């Protein structure tokens, strides 16, 4: 701090008049560097503020000691500042560093074409956003169409699917995700049961904990938990994998070899998750119910037998099956969004990061949306 101050006080600003003219001269002397240039600038701006509009000003820097590009920046910035204040700006003598720096940077003027993003009105920006969103939607619809046709085609040509790859992906997205899915579902089961235990006890309805946890887990929580976890675990991984391949031209290389990236990269992933997510859901259901049972025994004085008997009465095959059916579609959504975001990746490592984030956000959004649609659908079909 002290050094900083020392340097800025060592810089001397003297104001005087150029002889024979109405021009004000600001004479700058002393060492200027990146460390003190901003202080010098604010001092100079203070001086400039005191001058009337239209005044001619000259900056004289012959006595400045500088070894970096700070003074060159200072000069160009001040020229801009003073014109904004309505002053007429002139440059006097400069020290050699400033002169060289300015000459070097003036030699390469900023690119002529202005960035159209810069000066957009909010309405234009909003319009652009809508246009972008519709274009995005269009690409998404095309992607969905191609995936569906690819899926249907693969049903009639099962020999063409890379089953070895599918198997490896099932291992990665299913088996390896099992511990975390089970643990999380167990905890959610515990928490759900625990927070409703107090209410149930007040009504003496202890036994209904089995209905609550059973129906809640199988119909909603099981598939949702498994799907959201898989979005974070595998959907994002797909986006990153395919995105990285995209930016290093590997996807183009596939196309050039006459191999459809969709069949080669996307299809196995969707198939794998489509198969694993319903199974993961089944495990999530079981773990969640186990969590509920622990609370039932520990704090609602039920026996395991009575809990299981009540559970048997409470949930039917459809409850479990509808959850797995949902999970099947969630699986397509999770893998589909991950791959879609990966395939549309552009622009280096940053682009991969963006796709990965987008895959998780879009994935979870679509899962919740689809879940709502399923609830309504099941209700009106009279099966909910």
């Amino acid at each position, binding site marked *: 701090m002290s050094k900083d101050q020392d340097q800025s006080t060592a810089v001397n600003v003297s104001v005087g008049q150029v002889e024979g003219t109405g021009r004000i001269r600001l004479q700058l002397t002393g060492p200027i560097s990146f460390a003190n240039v901003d202080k010098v600038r604010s001092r100079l701006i203070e001086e400039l503020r005191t001058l009337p509009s239209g005044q001619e000003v000259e900056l004289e820097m012959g006595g400045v000691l500088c070894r970096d590009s700070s003074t060159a920046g200072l000069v160009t910035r001040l020229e801009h500042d003073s014109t904004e204040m309505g002053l007429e700006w002139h440059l006097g003598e400069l020290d050699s560093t400033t002169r060289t720096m300015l000459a070097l940077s003036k*030699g390469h003027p900023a690119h002529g074409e202005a960035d159209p993003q810069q000066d957009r009105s909010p309405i234009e920006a909003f319009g652009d956003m809508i246009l972008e969103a519709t274009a995005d939607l269009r690409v998404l619809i095309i992607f969905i169409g191609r995936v569906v046709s690819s899926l249907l085609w693969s049903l009639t040509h099962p020999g063409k699917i890379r089953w070895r790859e599918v198997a490896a992906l099932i291992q990665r997205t299913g088996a390896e995700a099992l511990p975390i899915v089970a643990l999380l579902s167990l905890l959610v089961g515990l928490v759900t049961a625990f927070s409703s235990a107090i209410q149930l006890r007040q009504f003496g309805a202890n036994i209904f904990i089995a209905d609550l946890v059973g129906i809640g887990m199988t119909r909603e929580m099981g598939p949702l938990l498994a799907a959201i976890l898989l979005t974070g675990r595998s959907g994002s991984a797909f986006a990153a994998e395919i995105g*990285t*391949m995209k930016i*290093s*031209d*590997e996807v*183009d*290389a596939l*196309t*050039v*070899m*006459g*191999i*459809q990236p969709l069949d080669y990269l996307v299809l196995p992933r969707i198939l794998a998750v489509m198969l694993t997510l319903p199974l993961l859901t089944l495990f999530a259901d079981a773990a969640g119910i186990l969590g509920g049972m622990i609370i039932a025994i520990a704090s609602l004085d039920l026996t395991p037998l009575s809990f299981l008997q009540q559970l048997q009465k409470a949930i039917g095959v459809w409850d479990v099956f509808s959850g797995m059916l949902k999970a099947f579609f969630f699986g397509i959504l999770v893998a589909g969004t991950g791959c879609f975001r990966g395939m549309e990746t552009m622009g280096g490592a940053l682009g991969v990061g963006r796709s990965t984030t987008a895959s998780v956000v879009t994935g979870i959004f679509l899962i919740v949306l689809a879940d709502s649609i399923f609830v309504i659908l099941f209700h009106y079909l009279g099966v909910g």
Partner: protein
Amino acid sequence: MSERKRVIEVRDLTVRFGEKTILENISFDVQEGEIFVVLGPSGCGKTTLLKHMIGLHKPANGSIRINGTDIVQAGDEEGTEEILRSVGVLFQSGALFKSMTLGENVAMPLREKTTLSGDMIEEIVRMKLAMVNLEGRENLMPNEMSGGMQKRGGLARAIALDPAILFFDEPSAGLDPITSVELDELILALNKQLGTTMIVVTHELQSIMKIAQRAIMLDNETHGIVAEGTPDELMASDQPKVRAFFHRERLDGES
């Protein structure tokens, strides 16, 4: 130069990204067996032109014919797939699949596009790797290879199916001068021995002078072709932009 069969014909090609024009009304021909260089400063659309020529992107306007078939009109996947069988591409970074060994990379087009037996594929992979001086390196992973090796590996994969046309995107980018010369010599040797038509996109002056038989120069202001001819003709050109490029001068005449 005697008139040879025209392998690629590009007519009135216009490319736009959104409202930004990249290329405007470009027309040129590539003749059979020649090494044709597309050159120009960074950002003038060289790589974009290449990606259009292999049908990865659709242009806003114009036609591109490879061996008489219009790949813009071919549109659907089967049409382009047929044409792509006769084409190999070496991408800027080599684009080897990072999850596979070098051998598997080179074997991939053979596995996917031919009915060759495993033994034959192995043999051909060994041959192709020998052509690019990578014999015996089948089991290396791409991340264990240097930049120059990755490019040669990419080249081995590109020539796996013995294409009649080879595209190179900035073959010498990111390589030291010696490795870059080696790659140029490899390109020349393959062209001579196999008679492959080659389209090379580059801005490396030495490389252009060494390998090019004919070249076009693109410009990032007019979005068109500023010059066309043999390297020597371009070298002798008195057009300011061409002169600046070939004599490493600045356009405004300073320095």
